[in-house]
């Protein structure tokens, strides 16, 4: 029996033994974890079967068809970014604890970016100071997706300001219910508040929630980010500016030759990006490589151009907007916002910023794939405490 057949058989057996309609959500997810079907490419005992990453797609297809929870959709950041980082860097005890928590529905957010540290992520200023039994953390994070609906955050904090900026960082998994954590919604261009600002004031994190060695947080963060790029690439493939534009085109274009050319060009770009992503998935072994930057850039630009075409197809209806009232827009999961092309158009402007800007992605491709020399870094070897910021 092929590996794919085995995964399919195990998934069907899971669904038979724990019918999603009559099994509690947590019980079902725990059974899925124990069956190795949460991340089939993880080792046995860590939610996987040591199988091919690509086989997970089939598991989700079957689960979704049967009405079972789909973590890849419902707790995307924990599932796609938190788990691989935990698997790579966590102790045995942490792997079991965090992976089981994620697998049974815990949601995570990413506490990396700060007002003074976006593309220059290593410039973060949130401080963690060691004390009895743990770390005392103070600082401010921003652009935190889904913070309000998450239970934990992947936190990057500075633990040694005397070291150069990449070296004095440590990675923590923060329980967001800890006293001193304050989450404030951040209103955006679309009117909704999908992101938040997170203020950390004297927050105590136990040392058992530190992921990876002290002052090695940059490396842990890199594995999180590599998985993030991969996730953005595939996420955009499912949300469809091409499909939406096609529908509007058929309804309204009226044979306009310019719109026809733009439509076929847009379709072509989406088609080729999907071919590329499928090809990358077939070859994927573990941590996504720099090829995920190709998908990231491609889908970001496709989304922007695609929704722009949608607006042109709408014509003067593009002058109006559905609502800017944040209360009507922001569902707890961030998934409730409307699918109005005008909102999607505005939202797409963030695609080439979030998860690493297009400029940073191009640097990565040039330096890591083509081997071009790095940008000169005037701050690389200076102690963080002596750097100019802001």
């Amino acid at each position: 029996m092929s590996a794919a057949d085995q995964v399919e058989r195990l998934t069907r057996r899971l669904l038979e033994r724990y019918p999603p309609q009559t099994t509690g959500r947590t019980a079902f997810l725990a059974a899925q974890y124990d069956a190795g079907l949460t991340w089939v490419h993880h080792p046995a005992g860590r939610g996987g079967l040591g199988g091919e990453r690509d086989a997970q797609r089939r598991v989700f297809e079957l689960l979704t068809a049967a009405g079972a929870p789909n973590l890849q959709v419902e707790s995307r950041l924990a599932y796609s970014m938190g788990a691989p980082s935990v698997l790579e860097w966590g102790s045995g005890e942490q792997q079991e604890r965090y992976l089981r928590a994620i697998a049974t529905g815990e949601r995570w957010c990413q506490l990396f970016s700060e007002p003074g540290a976006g593309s220059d992520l290593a410039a973060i200023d949130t401080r963690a100071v060691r004390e009895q039994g743990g770390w005392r953390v103070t600082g401010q994070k921003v652009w935190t997706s889904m913070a309000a609906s998450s239970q934990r955050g992947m936190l990057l904090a500075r633990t040694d300001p005397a070291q150069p900026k990449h070296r004095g960082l440590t990675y923590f998994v923060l329980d967001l219910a800890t006293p001193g954590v304050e989450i404030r919604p951040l209103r955006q261009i679309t009117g909704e508040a999908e992101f938040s600002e997170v203020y950390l004031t004297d927050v105590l994190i136990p040392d058992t929630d530190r992921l990876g060695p002290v002052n090695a947080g940059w490396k842990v963060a890199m594995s999180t980010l590599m998985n993030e790029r991969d996730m953005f690439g595939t996420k955009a493939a499912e949300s469809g500016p091409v499909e939406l534009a096609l529908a509007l085109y058929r309804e309204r274009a009226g044979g306009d030759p310019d719109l026809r050319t733009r439509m076929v060009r847009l379709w072509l770009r989406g088609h080729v990006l999907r071919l590329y992503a499928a090809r990358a998935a077939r070859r994927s072994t573990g941590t996504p490589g720099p090829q995920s930057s190709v998908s990231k850039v491609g889908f970001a630009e496709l989304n922007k151009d695609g929704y722009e075409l949608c607006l042109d197809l709408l014509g003067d209806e593009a002058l109006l907007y559905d609502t800017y009232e944040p209360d009507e827009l922001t569902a707890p999961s961030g998934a409730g916002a409307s699918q109005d092309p005008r909102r999607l158009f505005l939202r797409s402007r963030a695609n080439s910023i979030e998860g690493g800007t297009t400029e940073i992605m191009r640097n990565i491709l040039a330096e890591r794939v083509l081997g071009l020399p790095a940008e000169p870094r005037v701050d690389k070897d200076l102690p963080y405490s002596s750097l100019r910021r802001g």
Partner: protein
Amino acid sequence: MDEPDELRDLRSTLHRMLASTAPESVVREHLDSPEGFDRSAWTRLATEIGVQGLAVAEEYGGAGCGMRELAVAGEELGYSLFPGPFLSTVLLGATLIARSRDAATMQALLPGIADGSLVCTLALPQHGAGWDADATTVTAVSEAGTWTLTGTIDHVLDGQVADVILVPARHDGVISVFRVDANSPSVEVRPALSMDQTRRFAHVDLTSASALRIGAPGSARQLLADAGAVGSVGLAADQMGGARRMLEVTADYARTRYQFGRPIGSFQAVKHALANMLISTELARAALDDAVRAVDEKARDMGTAVSVANIVCSEAYYDVAAAAIQLHGGIGFTWEHSAHLYFKRATADRFLLGTPAHHAQRLAGALEL
């Protein structure tokens, strides 16, 4: 690159042979020669590797392979800018002949193609930069059981060296493909100067030239569609090879050329231009692989996959070659540097088997837009 062992072997063997027998210095020697390519290298490709016979059936002296192998060969030939009649003879000629199922023609021509001794081309008028049997203006007349062809076809690829010319011609209200002997006195071949110095074109005048019909009457449309698909994907592979080469050469240059005390590749503007070259090349690879699959499987989506590969690979090669000139600065615009040869080939490739605009129209039709 991850591909099956037999393909990787073909690629590396061909790569090595081309690097030794057809380096750029040899390519340049033939830019002005009457034939335009190195016969001895062409013969070695046939006898030592079997490139010309890759897709020819074994009973005619070939290896009976498919599009995958042809694409690997096309890519490596494109990488080294090999100036020989691969597109005309192997991709278009041999495919059309094989698909005709015309036993006499297959017996007469395929063994010579496979052993490298016979050059064959397809004379199709460029019709609105498309690929269309209906565009032929050549007429065929049958008298006492023999055919004669009359008409003119412009810029026939490799016309200056062809032994056999395949010509779609109109007769009795249908269009069929005929073969004429290029050395017959009623066939006049006038070589033209090509912008792409690694490919040659000629004007062909037929004045009651004796011809033999290939395959069934009225089968030209189908035969050209079949040969066009294989030719287009082979051409896309050539474009992939050229783009890969220009990307490598330019990245090397950016790592080693210093200005303002730094390698130019450390400047973000240069870095981003190279990243864009890489992105184009990577996406073109995905489109090419998909078209290879579609042709080998004779898939229902073959027409779409071929057009997608044509557009994406044409544009990738052209953009990458253009950026290569820009990033090399003044040296990139000189005769001595290889960039102009690749840029000219990239330019010509856009027009050969339907322009990107033509293929975009085809796609629009397939999508019912």
